[in-house]
Each structure stands twice: as C-alpha cells, then as structure tokens.
C-alpha cells in the first residue's frame, strides 16, 4: 500500500474504544524510535489498525521528508524475501530494510509457521531497535496468541507497547458516520446517522458499508432515506441484533450492499482518463457534435494527452460556434447545419461560411434616384401610377402582383423603384424591399447553383417584404429561373408580401413563359405605361429645361409638346440636344432654333462637344449632311430597285 495521505490522524475518529491506541500512535509519530518501540496494535478486523499505522507513516514522512518509511504486510514481506533468496539478493534485501527509519508491518498474525521469515524478522528487529528505528506492527490478536511463532520473536514483539482497539461506541460511530459523509460530500439527517449507529456492527468497515448502502439507496432515488427506513434498508430487523442477519437473507439490503461494493470497485478500476474522455464524448455528442476524434483516442491502449486533446477539441467547437453564428446572421436557416458540428471539419465550415457570405450579400435596394415625386403623371400613365400608389398604401392587399408593362423608356424602371422606395419608407417598420433586374436575378441563381447555396439564395428572397423585378421578360425561356420564381412568388404571396414586375410587354405576349407564371402575373393588376401624351410631354420638357437651369419660352415647350415621341427618354434627349445647340450657337433657345434643330438644323449632338464654338462650317451646310437616314426597310427596297 502506498502512503498517499488518505489515512491520517485528522480523519481518524477517536472514541473511548481506541483512545489509548490513538494516543500511542501519535506519540510514536511525534518521536519515532524513542517512546514505544515496537508499537503493537491489535484488534478485530476493520476497526482501524491499518489506519493508525498508515497515519504514523504519513505524519513522519510529512515532517521529515528524508525519512525512509515503508509500509508492508507480512505477506508482501514474505514474498519479497523469497524473491530475494531465489535471485541471490538476500543481502540486498536485508540492507534495504535495515536502512528504514520506520517499518510499518501489517497483519503480523500471518507469521504463523513461517520459520525463515520469523528468523529474518528477528534479525531485522534487533538491528532496527539497536539503531533506534521505529517498528509498528498490527495484528488481529495479541502476540502471545499468534500460534507457532518463535518465542524470541514473541518477546521482541511484546517488548514495546501492546494496545488494542475495541468496537466503537454509539457516539464514536455517529462521529465516524458524520466524518465519512463529509468526506463523500453526502448529507443525511442526524437521526438517520444515529439510527445507523444504533445498529450493531462488528467493525468500522461494516459501518462504512452500511453508509455506502444508504448512499446507494439515496442515489437511486427510489425511496427516501429517513430514520424509519434505515433498518429495513440495511437489512436489519427492528430491535434485533445485527449478527442474526449475517447468515440469512438480508432483503433489499443485501442487494444494495452488493451494488455499493461493485460501485467502489468500478470507481477504482475505471481509468480516469477514459472516464474523462467518455464524459466529453457524451456531453458533446448530446449537443450534436461529432466526437469521432475523441472516440479514436478512447480506443488507444494508453492515455493520450487528454488535457491537450480536450482543449483542442473544445477550441474547435467554439470556433465552429463562431462560424455558425456568423452564418446565421446572414441566413438563419444555416443554424444547426451538420457542417458546423464536426470539429474535424473546421475547414469545410469555414468554406461554407465564405459561400454563405458570398451568396448573402444584401439584395439590391430601390434606388433613391427614382423618387415618386419626380415621376410626372398624365392620362397616359395615370392608371399605372394610381396602382403604384395603391400598392404603396396597402402592400400585398390591393394589387398583388402589380405588373407594369410598356415600351422602352416610358418610366417602368422609375415607377418600379418609386414603388420600392415608397414601400420601404411607409409603414411602421422599415420593410425589406429588393429591386432587382431579371438578368441579375438569373445570374444570382446560376451562381447559387454553382456554389451549392441554393437554399441560402431562396431563403434570401423568401425573407423579403416586397420583391420588385424589372425587365421580367428576360425570364422567358429560362425554365429553372421560372420554376424558382414561381416558388418564391407563391411563398411571398402566401405571406401577404408585395410583388411588382416590369416588362416591355404584357404577360400574354411573353413567349416561352410557363402558364403557371403567366396566370399568376395576370392575377393581380396588369397596368400599361403608354408613351407620353401631349400634356405629359409638355410637363416633361418643362422639368427638363428647369432641371438644367435654362429658361425657355413657353411657346418652345408648346412646340416641342406637339411633336410625338416614343418615350420619355427621347424627350430628355431632345431637351439636351436643343440646349446644347443653343449654347453652341450662342443664342437662347427659341422656336426657330428648335425647329431648325429638329426639322433640318445642325445637331450639335453629333458634333463633338469639344469643338463647340469653333464648329467647322462644313457641318452647318444642310445640303451636305443627311440627318434623317431612311429606315433599313426603305433602304432595302431602294437597293432592290
């Protein structure tokens, strides 16, 4: 047995039955080799002989770290002696023991009949005593009652102090029980411990066994441990001495006692490092983390660096948790994905986060350049504009979806963004509005398919409060895009979220568009933006000239408004062209200049602006320049002739 400080004086409970033995042992420990040498302690089994002997050894080794202290049972001593003799090391054996400052010899009763050992011990005792070194012996009986022992040895054994330890009394038993409870960090009511102490136990070891049983019962939680149940739990019949129950059935107690003993055996044999690793396996496994690396370590024949391994593992887990958190801020649906649960696959998790981040860049918002108040209204576009206003006022309820169509340059994109801005700003909460063009919608989808982040891509769109898609005619012929759009459409409409589409033609004219989408587009409101009418043209010219800071006569605006145009864009182009021409000519813009410009004048728009003011006269000659080319069809007919 190793003297590991487990058995000390301060955890040895002293009562009337062991007071003398304890006092003698303390005296020996305080001054080894001087007071009682040898000290011979005897008692029935389990009353604390070994505890006292070990406590002496521990205290001496604590006070004198250099002291040679050895604790050995007679059995071990015999074994060592036999090995020494058979290997010719008998002298080394003797010298080894002769060097001891304190020899603690346990279970001396086993010297019976071992003549050689007795002789060897006699010699050793003589040597040690002559040198003033301490011998402490324990036995289950006094020296005179150990049969078949050399009389000279008996007299040596009896030469110091012989003390015995009796069975503990009630108070000592209660004290022992309390001390053991404190040691094991368990708690029982005082009357429970007193009830246990009232039972007759032949030894302290049995008393501890009884406590173990109660601890086991309490741990099972099957029934409360109270004073009234103690006797039954311990298998003692009320009012009968305990020894009557030794040989016969002891009821639950016998099984529980068995469980308690097995518990002790398991606790002492389960290797601590494996227990720690398996605990970690269980803990992390329950949280969904893969623990294969720990399981591999468990299978190793020897203990690996458990601390290092667990630290690395836990480090990887917390890194994964950070990655998971980062991904979840972009897309909640990534939370709890398996890729964040494998501490051996941190690299994969990092790559996944990168993909999520790439795919999760915020969707384009409506541009603030296209404010609603800058969108001029007239009869040609008022239906669409009113619909747009209604959508902003009651998103998802009035017209869902709103489908705006019209030729190029009539303000579809402007109106779309204006709706988006309106949706974004109205309402109590800031709405999540995306304004995307169909080509970039398609590109995004292709990229998501490529990177395997389709779920993330879908989740981003489905999380929107409003989705506005410009140039939706581009999805024609793109089956996969239409399929995804269909699902997003349904998901958003189901949640009452607004959808707005802009296209150059109405849904019914969109070729290669799946009917399920077409019918859905038509299911809301299809509103057309016509080319600007006269009133709108006048208004737009006024705004264009005012925007550039030019003051233009009303009759110019009237003249220009009378001219039919295909789009708003054309109006803006004309206004710019006229203002540049006026600037080049160094005059203010009048109807004649406008007429010259538009109906046969020189267009500074084709002249590089850097020559303004020094324009070559060549460009001013109407006859040499063809301003209005015949259209391609006309030219073809000409050429055919």
């Amino acid at each position, binding site marked *: 047995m190793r003297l590991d400080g487990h058995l000390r004086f301060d955890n040895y409970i002293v009562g009337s039955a062991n007071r003398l033995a304890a006092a003698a042992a303390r005296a020996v420990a305080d001054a080894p080799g001087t007071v009682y040498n040898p000290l011979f302690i005897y008692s029935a089994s389990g009353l604390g002989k070994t505890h006292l002997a070990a406590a002496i050894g521990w205290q001496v080794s604590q006070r004198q770290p250099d002291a040679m202290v050895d604790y050995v049972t007679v059995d071990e001593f015999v074994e060592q002696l036999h090995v020494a003799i058979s290997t010719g090391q008998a002298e080394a054996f003797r010298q080894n023991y002769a060097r001891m400052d304190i020899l603690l010899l346990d279970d001396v009763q086993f010297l019976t009949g071992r003549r050689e050992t007795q002789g060897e011990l006699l010699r050793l005792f003589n040597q040690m005593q002559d040198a003033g070194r301490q011998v402490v012996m324990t036995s289950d009986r006094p020296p005179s009652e150990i049969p078949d022992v050399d009389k000279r040895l008996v007299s040596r054994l009896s030469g110091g102090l012989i003390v015995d330890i009796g069975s503990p009394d009630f108070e000592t038993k209660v004290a022992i029980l309390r001390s053991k409870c404190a040691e094991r960090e368990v708690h029982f009511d005082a009357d429970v411990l007193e009830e246990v102490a009232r039972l007759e136990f032949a030894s302290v070891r049995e008393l501890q066994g009884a406590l173990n049983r109660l601890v086991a019962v309490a*741990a*099972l939680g*099957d029934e409360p441990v109270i004073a009234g149940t103690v006797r039954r739990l311990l298998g003692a019949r009320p009012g009968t001495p305990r020894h009557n129950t030794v*040989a*016969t*059935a*002891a*009821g*639950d107690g*016998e*099984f*529980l*006692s*068995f*469980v308690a*003993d*097995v*518990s002790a*055996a*398991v*606790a002492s*044999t*389960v*290797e601590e490092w*494996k*227990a720690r*690793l*398996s*605990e970690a*396996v*269980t803990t992390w496994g329950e949280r969904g983390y893969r623990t294969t690396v720990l*399981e591999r370590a*468990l299978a190793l*024949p020897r203990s690996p660096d458990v601390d290092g391994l667990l630290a690395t593992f836990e480090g990887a887990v917390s890194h994964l948790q950070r990655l998971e958190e980062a991904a979840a801020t972009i897309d909640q649906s990534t939370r709890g994905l398996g890729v964040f649960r494998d501490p051996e696959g941190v690299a994969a998790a990092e790559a996944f986060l990168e993909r999520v981040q790439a795919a999760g860049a915020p969707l384009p918002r409506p541009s603030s350049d296209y404010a609603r108040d800058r969108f001029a209204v007239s009869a040609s576009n008022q239906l669409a504009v009113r619909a747009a206003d209604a959508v902003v006022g009651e998103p998802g309820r009035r017209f869902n979806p709103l489908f705006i169509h019209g030729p190029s340059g009539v303000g579809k994109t402007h109106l779309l963004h204006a709706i988006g801005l309106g949706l974004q700003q109205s309402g109590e909460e800031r709405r999540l509005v995306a304004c995307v063009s169909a080509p970039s919608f398609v590109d995004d989808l292709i990229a998501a398919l490529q990177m395997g982040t389709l779920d993330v891509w879908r989740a981003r769109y489905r999380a929107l409060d409003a989705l506005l898609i410009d140039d939706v005619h581009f999805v024609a012929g793109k089956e996969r895009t239409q399929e995804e759009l269909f699902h997003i459409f349904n998901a958003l409409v189901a949640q009452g979220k607004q959808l707005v589409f802009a296209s150059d033609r109405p849904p019914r004219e969109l070729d290669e568009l799946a009917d399920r989408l077409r019918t859905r587009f038509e299911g809301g409101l299809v509103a057309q933006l016509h080319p600007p009418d006269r009133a709108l043209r006048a208004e737009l010219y006024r705004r264009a000239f005012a925007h550039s800071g030019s003051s233009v006569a009303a009759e110019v605006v009237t003249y220009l408004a009378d001219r039919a145009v295909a789009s708003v864009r054309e109006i803006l182009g004309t206004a710019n062209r006229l203002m540049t021409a006026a600037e080049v000519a160094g005059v203010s813009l009048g109807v004649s200049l406008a007429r010259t410009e538009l109906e046969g004048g020189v267009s500074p728009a084709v002249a590089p602006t850097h020559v303004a003011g020094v324009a070559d006269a060549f460009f001013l000659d109407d006859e040499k320049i063809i301003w209005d080319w015949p259209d391609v069809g006309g030219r073809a007919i000409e050429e055919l002739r």
Partner: protein
Amino acid sequence: MSIVNYATREITCKLVYYGPGRAGKTTNLHYIYEQLPAERRGQMISLATQTDRTLFFDFLPLDLGSIAGFTTRFQLYTVPGQSYYATTRNLVLQGADGVVFVADSQSRQLEENVESLQDLHLNLGEQGVDVRSLPLVIQYNKQDLPRDLILGVAELQDELNFRDVPHFAADALHGLGVFETLRCVAELVLRRLSQPAAGA
C-alpha cells in the same frame, strides 16, 4: 467480450455459474433474483425440463443502474450440469468474463465435481481462454447438510481448489454465501479492467 464500453458508458459483465448437475447453480440465481428490489427485477429466463433440471441455461440480467457514470449490467448465466449437455455448456461459456464454480459438497458427488471442473478447464482451453487469468470463484454449496453427508471445506479445498482461487461455503437455498460469491467474482472481474492486456 468487451466489459467496459467508454463510448456508450456501459459496463457489461457476463458471469457464468458452472458446476455439476444439481449442485445449486439455478438456486443461486433464484436467490439473487428474489433479493432484487421489485422495480429492478428483470425477467429471469429459465428453460427447465419437467423434472426441473436446467435444459438449456438460465439467464438473469442484473441492472445495477448508473455507477460512476457507467450503466452497469451483470448478466448471470448457468449451464446445464448434466454431462450430455456438453455443447450447450461450451456455448454458454463463450465470452464469459468470470466463472463461479458451484460444487456440491455431498461426499458422493465428489467425482462429479472433479469431472465438471475438468470439463470447465477443457472448455476454456478449447476457447483459448487462459484459465489462470480468468476470474474464477469456487462455491461449496449445501454446507448446511448433515456433517456425515458432506465433505468439509478443507477437504473440498484439497480436492478441487488446486489453483487456490477464492472460495465460499454456501447454503444457496437459504442464501448463505450467495451474495458473497457474486460480490467476489464481480470484484475480480472489475479489477481486471485495470489490466487491459489480460485476456482482451
């Protein structure tokens, strides 16, 4: 058989009660079964003949609950003692973590005891198990019978316990020595855990 599974935190031990016919192996298991708290009583499976001899084997699962964080189960088996069930005995013995040899203390049964013990060694040898490393406990049952019918423990020790394994006198019918035997073999088995190379 793996005793400790760290991954699932389970300890499972297979203990086999071996011995000649009518020595009291099933009686041991019955006594243990009766001592179990009602809520822990699993099912004891006993395949007995009409004359109450064990035909195939008895099986008693002992669920000890969670010990040191490990779900601990003991599986107690008996073998049929009659000599003509040699194959069954061999089968039941496979994977045993510990063996209790139940000897019949009656003088006239001594030869059966010796034969059965030899049979045990033979079977273990066939299975490649080192008898010296396998936890083994001998129980001298029926020590309650009149002195003139039985052999004393010392005599039985001389005849049977040449390896000096732990031994217990028992009266399995009344439970004397039953749990002591079980406790001893269980502790021997568990102690082997700290010597991973042995028999693994």
